[in-house]
């Protein structure tokens, strides 16, 4: 079967699948934080002229409220793909880490700053600050996450460009092609918006129904405001989708012709997932833009489209990366890794812990004193 990743050696195929699935889980939370922080920065800088300023809108309130948790979840979920990337691409990943040097080491302190600023943004205190101060904080938060996004993009591009390593070490110039880096970075940044909008859509609907958790959101969940917020989400979702498609096309043109050919031959199985995912999302967002409310079916359509695209992009991303490594070495290394044992342990405890996490959520839904 010449379809990626099933055309790889069984061990490598297994690790690539596990890596991509855990990466998608990470990406769901990561995109929420990245796009959410950019939206909040924009809403603070450009409050608009409507009755409720953008920074006080239900969408902004929900984002502010949930972004610290989403960042926590993104970091936690990110540990697993960070683990498996070291199994598959040990030399490439480590070398690009080292070549990025201080920039890479800055990722953690920048994330810490961004994390604490998210709590500042969430606090009641910030509403008493001047517009400039609020703007500075929210732009600062978005800047932190954009820097991290830049580092990961640069890391990825360096990892697949082994021929440049000595030159990068000598010059410190980690970016070989601004076009390549910018198009790839923008593809992820703009692609983050549809995912964030999908999650925020579920949240807004949830709050509208429960009408308990965030007082200001509840107040503003009356019909017209809710519809207006849904349309904001639809516009952002559609815009992000279109931009990510545009930047992805741009990025594809920076690749070697041979790699593009492999994309078409080995990666063809993922094309329907991309196309169907895009069509599902576009249809859902258009319906929301034109109608006076939402429906469960539309939300499911958008969500399935989002997940479908994320999984497809995840596998295509790895197809490109694997085409750049020495498969003989990677196959031997991954095969040896598969033999060290412990997988059953992981499966057993993961099932247990998923059950316990579900129990926690059920507990807070049922065992509150108010009910």
């Amino acid at each position, binding site marked *: 079967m010449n379809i990626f990743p099933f055309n790889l050696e069984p061990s490598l195929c297994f690790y690539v699948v596990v890596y991509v699935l855990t990466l998608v889980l990470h990406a769901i939370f990561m995109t929420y934080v990245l796009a959410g922080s950019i939206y909040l920065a924009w809403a603070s800088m450009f409050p608009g002229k409507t009755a409720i300023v953008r920074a006080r809108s239900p969408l902004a309130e929900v984002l502010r409220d949930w972004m610290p948790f989403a960042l926590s979840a993104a970091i936690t979920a990110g540990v697993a793909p960070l683990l498996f990337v070291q199994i598959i691409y040990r030399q490439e990943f480590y070398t690009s880490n080292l070549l990025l040097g201080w920039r890479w080491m800055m990722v953690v302190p920048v994330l810490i700053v961004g994390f*604490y600023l998210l709590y500042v943004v969430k606090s009641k205190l910030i509403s008493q600050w001047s517009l400039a101060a609020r703007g500075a904080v929210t732009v600062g938060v978005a800047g932190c996450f954009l820097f991290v996004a830049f580092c990961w993009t640069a890391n990825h591009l360096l990892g697949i460009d082994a021929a440049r390593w000595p030159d990068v070490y000598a010059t410190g110039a980690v970016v070989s092609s601004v076009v390549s880096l910018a198009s790839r970075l923008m593809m992820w940044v703009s692609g983050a918006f549809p995912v964030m909008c999908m999650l925020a859509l579920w949240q807004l609907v949830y709050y509208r129904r429960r009408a308990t958790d965030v007082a200001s959101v509840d107040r503003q969940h009356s019909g017209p405001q809710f519809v207006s917020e849904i349309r904001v989400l639809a516009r952002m979702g559609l815009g992000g989708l279109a931009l990510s498609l545009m930047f992805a096309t741009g990025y594809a043109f920076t690749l070697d012709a041979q790699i593009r050919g492999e994309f078409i031959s080995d990666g063809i199985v993922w094309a329907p997932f991309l196309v169907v995912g895009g069509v599902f999302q576009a249809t859902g967002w258009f319906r929301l833009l034109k109608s006076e409310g939402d429906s469960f079916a539309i939300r499911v359509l958008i969500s399935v489209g989002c997940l479908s695209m994320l999984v497809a992009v995840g596998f295509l991303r790895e197809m490109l990366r694997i085409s750049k490594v020495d498969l003989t070495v990677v196959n031997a290394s991954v095969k040896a890794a598969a033999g060290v044992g412990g997988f059953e342990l*992981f499966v057993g405890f993961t099932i247990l812990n998923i059950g316990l996490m579900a*129990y*926690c959520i059920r507990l807070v839904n049922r065992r509150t004193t108010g009910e």
Partner: protein
Amino acid sequence: MIRNVHASRLIEMHMSHIYPVNDYGPLMPGLVMAAVAIFHVFLAQFAVGGGFLLCYFQWLSMTGRNQYAKLFVHGYFKVLVMISFVMGALTGVGIWFTSIQISAPTIGEMVFNFHWIWATEWSFFCLEIVAGYCFYRYHDRLTDKAALTLLVLYTFAAWASLFWINGILAWQLTPGSWVESRSIADGFFNPSFWPSLFFRTIVCLTLASLAGCVLVNMIPNLDRPAQQSLVNRAAHLMAPMVAMPILGVWFLMAMPPDSRGWVLGGSPAMMLFFMISVGASVAIGGYAVIGLWMQRLYINGATATLLLLLAFGATAGGEFVREGSRKPYSIRHVVYSSGILPEEVAELRRIGCVSNDPFPLMHEPGLPNETVTLGAKVFRRQCAVCHTMEGSNAVAHLTESWDADQMRMNIAKLQQTKPFMPPFAGTPAELEALVSYILWVQDDRPSEYAVSEDQAVLQQIAKWMDEAGTQAATVTSMEREKR
């Protein structure tokens, strides 16, 4: 050979992949690692102990044993989230990034051999975050029983994270029978696993207890008797400290004899840090037993903070000892502290350690000739993880009283000169180049510098290297004992 060569290491050996080395100025990379690691360990252990303390206080509140306990639970958990969820989680990622910067082969081997253990730990980390965040967000609306359930799940998950990571960290020092069997169970439940786990658990409880004492003093509108009752309750978590001496001895006995030797006097620096750790622990334990239990004293914020700082010192000392006592390895019998594998040494002595190093020298301008340039590359490959040339742990300083011949012999027989050093892993010409580089630096980096081209010197170096062999002093002495 002490054991069979492992598949992954064979691969790495055959590829002889050389990673770029970053320069940290006067700081040796090991110090950067130590700083991040100590900070993270302190926070992570605080997070684990915090869970136990919160469960205890929630129980006190539910059973009516302390009417202020609930107030404390809600306040303490916010601090725990702000510190451990943010700083703890991120410095954990930071350790991974820093490890890669310092010794990619070491972290690579750890991940390679225990990635499913790490993945299992990750699933507990997810539970910790979910249970913790559920409590953080909804605690004021939860029934007491539901709150306690969430806290118990949070604590279970946090401690389980410690359980899994402890196995991997202990394996670095005492791989035990894993060396022969390659069984993941042998590696995980290695000789220092249990004493290390129990010891760390007690440290967790102590840190949480001390942080609790600090926090009690920060709760507004709480009168002195109320504060004192909370402080005395928090101090109960320090009770297990009485077991620390026994566990400490158990851990020392589980250590390899040579590592134990460094700690108990063989290495002045390690002995010093060990004593700092022991001294700080005795001071905290003594205060807890005499002041907080026997005399039921009140402890104010300043004293509690001071004790917490002492605990930080104890943690730092302990972690330094744990890291340092592995020498000459970063993973015993698996990777040397230089990042070179034991099996590579013989081959590198044949082909040279920098013969396929593609990375140019960046941080040493004005090198006068090819030999000194080669020496600088050898230094970067073999020494730069633990040493600088003129900053901390400086080679130029450590060798300044040696003449050239003495330097040649001491480096050629490095594992015998200093048993906590790995054997030199390069050709005689590379060793001579390293000596030239060190002497050039000691001579204030002149623009022109004459180097020895005497073949007899190289032959003598080769003879010394052959006499010392390619194995670490620890292995040689173990084999001698076996014979």
